[in-house]
């Protein structure tokens, strides 16, 4: 309890290591292009991720057009459709969500929130981005090679992924696998930075149990990614060998279209295990940063501490650990030994307990709070709703026998879009509205933001809720068109047409959001220092936006947790982390700059 009481300990340990001087850019190129400043790298990561994400958005429109109005578009044939869904899924999960949460928010927020001047390995951090950019370039190149990108589904299951019955099996699949391998190499460089920075570069007084939950979420997600991505890396390398060199890691004896192929002895299930050993933690690589960020958004904008901070931290850690022993719940009907079902169903449903606790604590944070209905708060509320909805359908799919009729139906599509598509993206939007003033010094436009929230939240919910019921009916996923199917009523097609129209409207709202991002750079209201009156360190910098090195001459010293809102007896409704308890009253109204901290290490 001592760590989180408001009358925080004023006894701050002295600095054990002297500060290392930073690399100072000498030219425009090293300042803005080959930059070693984590904040610039964060912006580079974010812009690249959003740009490639726009490609995925357009792909989703194309696939929705086909589903809503089959046989209406001569430019979409079955090959195109499978390429659209594959590239949409892969881009969203890896190149947008993973890159944006870790490379974008991780780079920007970790050093600022832990009170460091930069990441601990700035040069490797810069390399991380350029390798990521190369991975994106290879991915984009696959759209322009003969045969186009792979259409194997984002899961890339062999043998299908590398056989001629699948679009892009000539060059597309090779570029896809190479791109993934590059992404993993780039991520590893960034990931090591995030972990070491959190462990080694926290400022004096910033104990682990005083870290904002944003940092906890990104920190644990990065550890998961560092452990999970190697499994995918191995799978990619082996599949490249199978495709290019004719090895048979994943390829049994096969007769393709009447012809005996020279493969033999490999196991398609081996790839699935490798893929999901990565693939399930990947869900939490996206979800944990969202959990962390949304906790901070709720707390700041409800003017109340997060409820049950320590349980929230432990829940993140436990969810992260459990996420490594649930992977085969993606494979209940894969043909693996069915007795695995008992184990994986049990572990999967156990993970619901810490996850549910997080939901309760978010909701309880609102209890007797002082809720400001700012844009970040609206998106945070939207996140809780969609996450609860998507989470409980996970309990259907995790319970092995319930998964049998539902697997590979639209129910699965609806589930994962709600829980790891819509929910984390709502957090990303909330986070951008929240931290844009820090990054640019200007506020995003409120009216456009309101339009963006209402259309996106109501629209996305309207899109994905009904799809669950199509899945329950037995409509399969990954079908180019349903054709004549006796058990599917004509009304299902009407529903699909309706969903497509809503999807296009939601897509339009994202264009408004992008316009807002650009316009507010010059025309937004000037934000000033700490416009949300937040207590965490990133808002306590001397300059807004923070300059190279983040803080002024002296690093801030931390006296309390990040959630001292509405502390009884304090003059303001928040106390920044770097205010000692004897200065709470004096620093009324104006938060102290970092230089007001204790200057010399005490002896």
């Amino acid at each position, binding site marked *: 309890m001592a760590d989180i009481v408001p009358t925080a300990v004023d006894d701050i340990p002295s600095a054990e290591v002297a500060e290392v001087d930073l690399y100072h850019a000498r030219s425009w190129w090293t300042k803005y292009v080959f930059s070693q400043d984590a904040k610039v790298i964060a912006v580079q990561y974010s812009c690249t991720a959003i740009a490639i994400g726009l490609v995925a958005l357009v792909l989703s429109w194309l696939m929705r057009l086909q589903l809503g109005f089959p046989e209406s578009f001569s430019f979409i044939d079955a090959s195109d459709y499978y390429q659209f869904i594959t590239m949409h899924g892969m881009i969203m999960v890896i190149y947008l969500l993973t890159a944006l949460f870790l490379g974008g928010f991780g780079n920007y927020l970790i050093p600022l929130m832990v009170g460091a001047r930069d990441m601990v390995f700035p040069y490797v951090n810069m390399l991380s981005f350029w390798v990521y950019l190369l991975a994106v370039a290879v991915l984009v190149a696959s759209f322009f090679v003969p045969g186009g990108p792979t259409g194997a589904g984002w899961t890339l299951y062999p043998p299908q992924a590398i056989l001629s019955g699948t679009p892009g099996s000539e060059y597309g699949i090779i570029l896809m696998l190479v791109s993934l391998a590059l992404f993993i190499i780039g991520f590893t460089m960034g990931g090591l930075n995030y972990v070491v920075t959190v462990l080694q570069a926290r400022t004096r007084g910033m104990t682990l149990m005083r870290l904002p939950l944003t940092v906890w979420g990104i920190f644990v997600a990065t550890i998961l990614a560092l452990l999970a991505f190697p499994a995918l890396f191995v799978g990619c390398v082996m599949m490249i060998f199978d495709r290019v060199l004719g090895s048979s890691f994943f390829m049994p004896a096969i007769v393709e279209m009447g012809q005996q192929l020279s493969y033999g002895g490999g196991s398609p299930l081996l790839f699935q295990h490798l893929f999901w050993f990565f693939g399930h933690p990947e869900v939490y690589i996206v979800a944990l940063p969202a959990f962390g960020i949304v906790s901070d958004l709720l707390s700041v904008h409800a003017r109340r501490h997060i409820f049950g901070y320590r349980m929230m931290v432990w829940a993140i850690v436990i969810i992260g650990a459990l996420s490594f022993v649930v992977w085969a719940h993606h494979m209940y009907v894969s043909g693996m030994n069915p007795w695995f079902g*008992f184990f994986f169903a049990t572990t999967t449903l156990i993970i619901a307990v810490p996850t549910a606790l997080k939901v309760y604590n978010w909701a309880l944070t609102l209890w007797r709070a002082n809720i400001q*209905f700012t844009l970040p708060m609206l998106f945070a509320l939207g996140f809780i709703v969609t996450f609860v909805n998507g989470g409980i359908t996970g309990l259907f799919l995790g319970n092995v026998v319930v998964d049998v009729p539902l697997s590979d139906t639209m129910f699965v599509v609806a589930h994962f879009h709600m829980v790891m598509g819509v929910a984390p993206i709502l957090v990303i939007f909330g986070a951008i509205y929240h931290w844009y003033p820090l990054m640019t010094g200007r506020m995003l436009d409120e009216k456009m933001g309101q339009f963006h929230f209402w259309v996106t939240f109501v629209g996305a919910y309207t899109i994905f809720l009904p799809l669950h019921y199509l899945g329950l*009916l037995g409509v399969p996923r990954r079908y180019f068109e349903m054709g004549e199917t006796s058990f599917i009523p004509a009304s299902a097609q009407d529903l699909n047409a309706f969903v497509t129209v809503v999807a296009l409207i939601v897509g339009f709202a994202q264009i408004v959001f992008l316009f807002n991002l650009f316009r507010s750079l010059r025309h937004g209201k000037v934000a000033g220092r700490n416009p949300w009156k937040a207590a965490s360190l990133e808002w306590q910098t001397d300059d807004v936006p923070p300059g190279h090195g983040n803080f002024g001459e002296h690093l801030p010293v931390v006296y309390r947790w990040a959630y001292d809102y509405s502390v009884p007896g304090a003059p303001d409704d928040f106390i920044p982390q770097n205010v000692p308890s004897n200065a709470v009253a004096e620093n009324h109204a104006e938060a102290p700059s970092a230089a007001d901290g204790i200057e010399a290490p005490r002896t």
Partner: protein
Amino acid sequence: MKKGFGVALLLILVVVGTVGFHVFSPWWWTELASNWGYIDDTIILTFWVTGVVFVAVVGFMAYCVLRFPYQEGRRSEYNPENKKLEWWLIGLTSFGVVLMLTPGLFVWNDFVSVPKGAAEIEVMGQQWQWSYRLPGKDGVLGTTDVRQVNDTNPFGINPKDPKGQDDVLIAGDDLHLPLDKPVKVLLRSLDVLHDFYVPQFRAKMDMVPGAVTYFWFTPTRTGTFDVLCFELCGVGHYAMRSKVVVEKEDKFQAWLKKQQTFAQSLREAENQSGGESKVASALGPENAAGGGSGSRDHGAPTVRVNP
């Protein structure tokens, strides 16, 4: 208008809309045609448990939003933790999880325990069509090997295995099954992953090249049911269709007698071997992608002559 009212209204509409859609939407599962009613029951139970949690959480948020909007000068309540409350919530959630998982695992135990005396049949998948094999008079399916697959032996049945000679082969036609007899469906694929699924039966399993997988069920209702492929298998995936006809025992036997056995198919091929080998419609990616009705239109087994 009071601050927070619009947001509270939104949250309440989400709850009412979701529950309303669940109750009144016309899209629901197909009428059951197998013994797996327990699976449906487990789904209903899960809907109840999770539905209560959904309504409670979103409802609680709506209340907070309505009750505690921002007022200048007001302070939130400061009590960072409530151990007792958190442990109660953990306990209740665990109870709900046990409530759903326990029956689920019992039903799964049924699902993986094939009853003695279940008739074995085989479903074989290849891009993009279904074939079926039923044991002949000896009641046993002959062994197979992908390496044995050729023009005259599209199933790859081991020609030296006497148990395979009387196997009944159905290629490019509907599968018939007798009513109320448990069936163990053995699943095999020649090329890529497929998945044999009839929504009315509720049971499915992937077919994996290089392995034989299985599931079991008992048809409990006569009728003709659509078979769909439920594992992405290439560009013709959506067109990989067939039908299962469930009928009374006597009708089934009459149908069975009319089907060709492996031995008969070999003799027929021998008679024709004087001329060119017969080329039935080889279903390439281009013709599969064109038609929506799928492979069951093709009367003969897929054979492609090696170049």
